[in-house]
């Protein structure tokens, strides 16, 4: 099987398309959940920082959606706003609500959950981006180099919160450990490529699922060790795989809000 970019090979194009939808939808939903924290973060500096990170991440989603646009899958705006939940390929983790309530009304968001989700997701993204820098699809490799520079600051930010909160009061540690457990229950498909699990690495678009996951665990282990925490050993994981279009109602609800303006007038500039 050829490991070079070959858009005349339908199997290559299929694997590439699937991977792009997965990483685009991941960053799209991740930045949406991040943006829901605007005005609610623990302090003003955090509001500035996390909204900046959400803005960067939305920019990354746009870069991927544009590659899909080039491949003839419709406009980037349409791909971002107009696809139904069953067409989405993001992981379950990024579609989860920030907590009970609504950001406009009585938001009971959990900052410990935000910190753990954002840190674990951003570290996973770093592992993937490092691998994508060697992708067989040159445009994707170029974008990875660009994203990696911005990601440096995101990772630094969430790691700082993660380490700080796990090194302070008993209440903080308790809430952080509960959040770790909750995040890990949804972590099953973060490193999954779904039905394309074999072909995506075979075409050298990115490395294998288990190689990436092991790298993530290795990077996380030293940080966890430094604060006396660990990943839960036995966890009951959810069976849904977002990479195959399986999702929760929480995604449906997010898409209703996200696509509201676009559905009223698709020509509205953003």
């Amino acid at each position, binding site marked *: 099987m050829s490991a070079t970019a070959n858009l005349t090979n339908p199997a290559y194009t299929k694997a590439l398309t699937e991977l792009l939808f997965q990483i685009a939808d991941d960053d799209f939903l991740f930045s949406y959940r991040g943006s829901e924290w605007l005005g609610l973060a623990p302090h003003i*500096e955090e509001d*500035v*920082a996390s909204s*900046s*990170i959400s*803005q*960067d*991440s*939305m*920019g*990354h989603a*746009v*870069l991927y959606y544009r590659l899909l646009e080039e491949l003839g899958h419709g406009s980037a705006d349409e791909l971002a706003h107009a696809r139904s939940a069953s067409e989405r390929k993001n992981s379950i983790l990024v579609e989860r609500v920030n907590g009970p309530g609504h950001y406009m009304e009585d938001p009971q968001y959990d900052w410990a959950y935000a910190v753990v989700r954002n840190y674990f997701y951003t570290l996973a993204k770093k592992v993937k981006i490092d691998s994508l820098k060697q992708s067989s699809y040159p445009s994707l490799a*170029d*974008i990875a*180099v*660009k*994203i*990696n*520079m*911005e990601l*440096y*600051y995101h990772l*630094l*930010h969430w790691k700082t919160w993660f380490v700080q909160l796990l090194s302070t009061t008993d209440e903080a540690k308790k809430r952080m450990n509960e959040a770790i457990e909750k995040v890990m229950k949804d972590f099953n498909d973060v490193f999954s490529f779904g039905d394309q699990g074999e072909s995506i690495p075979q075409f050298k678009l990115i490395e294998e699922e288990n190689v990436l996951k092991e790298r993530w665990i290795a990077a996380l282990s030293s940080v966890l060790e430094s604060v006396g925490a660990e990943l839960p050993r036995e966890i009951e994981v959810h069976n849904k795989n977002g990479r195959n279009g399986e999702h929760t109602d929480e995604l449906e609800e997010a898409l209703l809000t996200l696509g509201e303006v676009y559905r009223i007038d698709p020509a509205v*500039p953003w």
Partner: protein
Amino acid sequence: MVARLSVTIQDVLDTLKQVKDPEIDTVSILDLGMVEEIIVQEDSIYIQVLPTFSGCPALEIIKSNIIQAMKNAHSIEHVQVEFITSPPWTSDRITEKGRQNLKKFGISPPSHMKEDGSWHIDCPYCGSTYVTMENIFGPTACRSILYCKSCKNPFEAMKPMSTLL
């Protein structure tokens, strides 16, 4: 017969000097190192531009400002601006003039990052090194917020962006 005055690359560069960062009006996009390639043909100008940060909301404004400036300065119908990601924009693309003009705006120019990932920032007003980082993230994606303990001014700094990160 209409004689067409041909536009040179230098003409385009001179015009680009007038196109400023929409949020930092002392610095041109040329001095920020955002312009990668210029192709001038008989009736068209094509310019490749590198975005500083991928989520920067000013990109569309920059694009339309370039097109407008070209049409105003040169009687040319077709001006195309394309954003590209390769090569990636890095902060060492900012010219010396750009660095000086960032300071005039109260923004400390990006410094070179050391091997351990740390970087050094001086106050753009008094030059003091006695500064504290208030927030790595600032009012725009490319900036951080700091405070000078010497002249007691808050100020901003451009984040270093390097492929070594």
